[in-house]
């Protein structure tokens, strides 16, 4: 369970990241956080992982406040960044995946077991000795997911996971996101291109200028998402048109 209560955050340059944001997400849901550029989506995700701490309000994951136990929060909430290259820290694929478990001070055999499992889950086990920078865009994104899987988090947050990916890359990443959801994890995905994932989404969170402007099931918010700088999915647009025609 994720709970945000009256969260406020502004950056050092005075830009407001989040303003009085409050909502809750039950465990096991796939949630899309949508909004235009600069609406506060990434700032919100960074609060969940403890990379940013709220200046006012509280962020809790499974009852633990991000202010109280940062290592515990980072073990519970894995974050996949928008730019995969920026997230890769290892000189080989296996070494990169091992980075998180090593930070958890796990024994070496357990680390190796988790690395193998995570690489198998994203179908990269045959590239474990390869240098990560030689992977394709989709493979790099899958590698970053493996790095998070190896930490066995209860919540995984994705920042714009489909950006700069071709069709095959999008399909591969989407498959991983759905597998995470199927395994019972809570998954949050930020995007302003919700078409790719909306069919599998339990809940939509809409952001605008750091404020939460809407939250609920997709059917409730899809007809109005374009007001907030998010492209309405074609299927939703068609549905609205058919309904108005029938009426």
């Amino acid at each position, binding site marked *: 369970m994720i709970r945000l209560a009256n969260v406020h955050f502004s950056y050092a340059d005075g830009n407001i990241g989040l303003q009085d944001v409050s909502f809750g997400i039950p465990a096991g849901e796939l949630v899309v956080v949508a909004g235009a550029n600069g609406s506060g989506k990434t700032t919100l995700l960074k609060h969940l*992982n403890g*990379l940013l701490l709220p200046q006012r309000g509280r962020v809790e994951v499974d009852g633990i406040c991000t202010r109280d136990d940062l*290592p515990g929060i*980072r*073990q519970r909430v*894995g*974050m996949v*960044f928008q*730019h995969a290259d*920026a*997230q*890769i*820290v*290892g*000189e*080989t694929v296996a*070494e990169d995946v091992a*980075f*998180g*478990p*090593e*930070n*958890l*001070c*796990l*024994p*070496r055999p357990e*680390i190796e077991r988790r690395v193998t499992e995570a690489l198998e889950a994203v179908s990269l086990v045959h590239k474990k*000795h*390869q*240098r990560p*920078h*030689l992977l394709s865009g989709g493979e790099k994104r899958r590698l970053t997911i493996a*790095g*998070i899987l190896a*930490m066995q988090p209860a919540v995984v947050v994705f920042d714009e996971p489909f950006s700069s990916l071709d069709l095959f890359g999008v399909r591969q990443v989407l498959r991983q996101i759905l597998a995470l959801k199927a395994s019972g994890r809570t998954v949050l995905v930020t995007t302003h291109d919700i078409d790719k994932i909306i069919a599998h989404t339990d809940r939509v969170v809409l952001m605008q200028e750091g404020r939460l402007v809407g939250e609920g099931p997709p059917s409730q918010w899809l007809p109005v998402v374009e007001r907030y700088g998010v492209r309405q999915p074609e299927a939703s647009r068609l549905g609205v048109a058919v309904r108005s025609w029938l009426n």
Partner: protein
Amino acid sequence: MAELSVFGYRHGRSPAHRLDVRCKLIILLVLTAAVVAAPPVAMGPISLGIILLWASLRLPLRRLGREIRLFLVFLMAVFIVRALSTPGVSVVDWHGLSVSREGLYQGAVVAWRLMMVLALGLVFVTTTRPSHLKAAVQWLLRPVPFVHAPKAATMVGLIVRFIPVLHQQVRETRSALAARGGGRQRLRLGQIRYLVFPTMRRVVLAADQLALAMLARGYQETRTEPDLHATAADGLALAAAAAVLAATLMI
């Protein structure tokens, strides 16, 4: 992205890959001392050894040449300065500049020594995982008082991690400049600022993002370190390096 800098770890099974990183670090220091201290007559066998070491890594030599061409320019500059500044029998006189025979000889020897030191460093970087290097530095610094070994080791590890990133950023900035300059790859001296400042900005941003990503994955100084095991082969390699240094000092 397919062409990547050689300044980074490459997985392999060469003898250099298999050595314990602590021994490898000491061997690097010992051999560097040998290269620096060796009389010119001993440079031939030492160079042959280093070339054989390189060959055992099976790295593409053409790419290596391309990657280290900036260092070659530096070595050429060292050679020229030595050739011009060392007194001796003049070979060429031109507008008051004199190139001496001794200067040419000295310049060639110094440039060759630097080249061999660079080659040794590259062998080390190519065959050593940064995480192992970090563990080795931590091990070496542990007995040193007033030094926070984990922090110092992390810094060394990050620097090594950042060499290929820096290289990549330079290449990307050059490509962006070439794309807007009619495809001209070479920069004039006055245009260097167009390369340096954007590259520095990108490197700082990349460092910032990398630090965030490390934090997001729970980075802390106390973590599971690689298992380091020294074997008899490490002892033999260490003894061989010490013998090379002793021999060069005795010649």
